[in-house]
């Protein structure tokens, strides 16, 4: 493994890991605030219990999100020092603002999780709302930084001289920022909604504590479904931006080789980079031109217009794009079904609960795939058109060792989080079934010696 490859693998692994926890930190506060508000409105203790149960899982996920994020902020320099020496000042504004957002998030999360008995109910709910706002804001800021890598703006100078003059806000509000923030924020709420709904559906299928899991499922599924239905719209906005600013990425997403008018949209298929063609694809005529430029006869640039050393790995990008869109369509179908049941005020049948269990990972898969599209589709550039990834990597040797170390560490953490969440989520109900429980009596068992 070359050092460059090891660095890319470590970056991709760390980001793919962090995002799992980051989306929980963004979306779970919304679910908790909804439950908390219901509790205050109705006085029903079940909503309070729900909010507390969710809070426990969130605290675990949040901690891992915070430490893996810390690793990332160092990794940017440990792996890509030349990139940071150049880009650091330019995208410094979103990163600095993000720092404050993290602070607010961490402060109010502490109050929300541990301060229920120390502050008034009003302040408690307010801290939940602050966690939600600060979490979403911090994600938006980091997305602006990432969008700048796709559509760099707001500076003069180049990587050799360093940035000479910078307009921090022009860099932050670069062309891709809006569509990325919009699409990714919706993605976080959609995927967490689906994942949580799947867990509660599984509990309902086991027949434990329906009075708790039914309202839980309802809240989670509503949030998941609303954002899943928005997702193709925000995705279309993103695609139009990519078509305009990164035509080569769009061509790779579609496995589109020849520049043509009235370009077809390809479903499935395998792009062959040697032969420069995409085999076995289902082609829908004119659709790509329409989706990319809003006109069925518009011209769509193909990969052959670019030299080979400026093309991203086409097959990876194309397949990842198919996976994301496929998951998105499946989520819409599941959400739509749920909406019909709700409209007819019908009890959710068991087969639908089973479907929800199966659908639980769809959003998360779509997120990982979508990031693969964005990041791999930008290759060979770390900053589109300005700095190549290969020129940004650190001269430090033996990078495969940190790559393997952090991979091992994250595997260990991932396994532990799963075991622990199972204990926290399921042990409670098991106790309830087989005798008195201390998990559910107001304060948690972990508080006791």
């Amino acid at each position, binding site marked *: 493994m070359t050092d460059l490859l090891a660095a890319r693998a470590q970056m991709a692994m760390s980001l793919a890991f962090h995002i799992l926890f980051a989306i929980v930190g963004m979306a779970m506060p919304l679910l908790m605030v909804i439950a908390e508000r219901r509790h205050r409105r109705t006085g029903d203790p079940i909503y309070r219990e729900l909010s507390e149960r969710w809070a426990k899982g969130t*605290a*675990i996920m949040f*901690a*891992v999100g*915070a*430490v893996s994020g*810390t*690793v990332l*902020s*160092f990794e*940017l*320099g*440990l792996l890509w*020092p*030349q990139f*940071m*020496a*150049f880009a*650091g*000042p330019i995208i*410094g*504004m979103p*990163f*600095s603002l993000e*720092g*404050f957002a*993290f*602070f*607010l998030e*961490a*402060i*109010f*999360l*502490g*109050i929300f999780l*541990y*301060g229920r008995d*120390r*502050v008034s109910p009003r302040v408690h709910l307010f801290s939940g709302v602050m966690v939600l706002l600060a979490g979403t804001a911090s994600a938006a800021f980091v997305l602006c930084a990432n969008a700048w890598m796709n559509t760099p703006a707001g500076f003069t100078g180049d990587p050799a001289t*360093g*940035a*000479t*003059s*910078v307009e*921090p806000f022009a860099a932050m509000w670069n062309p891709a920022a809006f569509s990325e923030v919009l699409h990714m924020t919706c993605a976080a709420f959609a995927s967490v909604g689906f994942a949580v709904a799947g867990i509660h559906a599984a509990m309902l299928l086991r027949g434990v504590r329906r009075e708790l899991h039914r309202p839980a499922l309802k809240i989670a599924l509503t949030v998941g479904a609303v954002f899943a239905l928005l997702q193709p719209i925000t995705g279309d906005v993103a695609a139009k931006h990519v078509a305009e600013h990164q035509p080569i990425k769009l061509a790779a997403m579609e496995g589109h080789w020849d520049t043509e008018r009235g370009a077809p949209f390809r479903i499935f298929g395998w792009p062959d980079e040697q032969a420069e063609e995409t085999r076995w694809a289902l082609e829908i005529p004119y659709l790509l031109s329409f989706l990319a430029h809003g006109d069925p006869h518009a011209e769509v640039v193909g990969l052959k217009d670019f030299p080979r050393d400026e093309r991203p790995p086409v097959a990876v990008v194309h397949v990842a794009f198919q996976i994301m869109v496929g998951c998105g369509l499946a989520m819409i179908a599941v959400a739509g079904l749920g909406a019909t049941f709700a409209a007819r005020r019908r009890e959710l049948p068991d087969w639908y609960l089973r479907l929800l269990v199966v659908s639980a990972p769809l959003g998360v898969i779509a997120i990982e795939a979508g990031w693969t599209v964005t990041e791999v589709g930008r290759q060979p550039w770390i900053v589109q058109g300005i700095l190549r990834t290969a020129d940004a990597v*650190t001269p*430090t040797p033996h990078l495969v060792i*940190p790559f393997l*170390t952090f991979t091992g*560490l994250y595997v260990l*953490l991932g396994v*532990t989080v799963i*075991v*622990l969440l199972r*204990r*926290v989520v399921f042990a409670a109900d098991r106790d309830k079934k087989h005798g008195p429980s201390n*998990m559910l009596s107001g304060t*948690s068992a*972990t508080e006791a*010696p």
Partner: protein
Amino acid sequence: MTSELMIAGVMLVALVLYTLTGGADFGGGVWQLLAWGPRKGAQRRLVDDSIKPIWEANHVWLILLIVLLFVCFPTAFAAVCIALHLPLALMLVGIVLRGSAFVFSHYDPLRGRGALRWGGVFAVSSLLTPITLGVVLGALGSGFDVDPATGLVDTDFVSEWLAPYPLAVGLFTLALFAFLAAVYLVNETDDPELRADFRARALGSAVAVAATASLAYLVAPPVIRHDLSASPWATPLHLATGLVAVAALVALWTRRDGLARASAMAQVTLIVVGWAVAQYPYLAYPGYTIAGTAAPASVLTPILVALAVGGVVLFPSLAYLFVVFKRRPGA
């Protein structure tokens, strides 16, 4: 004062606050590792309860520090990241293990039965991070030359930090964090026996602080002892540090615990400030100065404004967090 100096000042404040808060959290881990005697369980629980609600917030100071470094002094950040890759990576391993192990052991409803024995990991990683953090800070004092051919730092990736002085600073940092944590923990409980336990630990670790400080002084290379300590402020700072250190000891001995806490905090603050004064005007000696690596003014000025505006929101919230959780029951 120039903008880059103001930002360096903010970074110093962040480092001081990280030491006073996050550093003490790591120190708490040391006392969990070393818990002994009849009140072993109670000691561990006290550490756990004192850290739980605030560690996330404490930890953001480090993030703020690193973000300001790469935004405002980008080439210094790149140089440090290249030359100190290994100790920084180890520090991160410690941060990851400690943060997650702490939460895992706290939330595990079965309390670590079976495969999940995280309490020990939390404690051991509490050693790794302070030592490597100290190594990094110690290493900044020498060996960062710019390679004229590449424009990057001229380094063999090892010799900057694998030297007696940085390693001694690492041990000193560990002792200092443990001392700070012990003094805080005395003030965290009303139980007289626990207070006595941690008072004894505070006194013991004060001895370790003095010993490791002397060690660091003995092994310091001449540049550190002379060039980097030539500031006219050095002597008054050393004197002041010595005074508050003695004050902390006397206060502990005479059981004026609140005073002990204030003196320990002043002592640690003065040590960090003293380090920064010695280091001035270098971020990494001798190739990377504050002025020489600063980003253009068009970056620094808006960041200063953002820091000021952010501070207005941040400090009241932070104060509120500490009021909610650090107000002693009944006090």
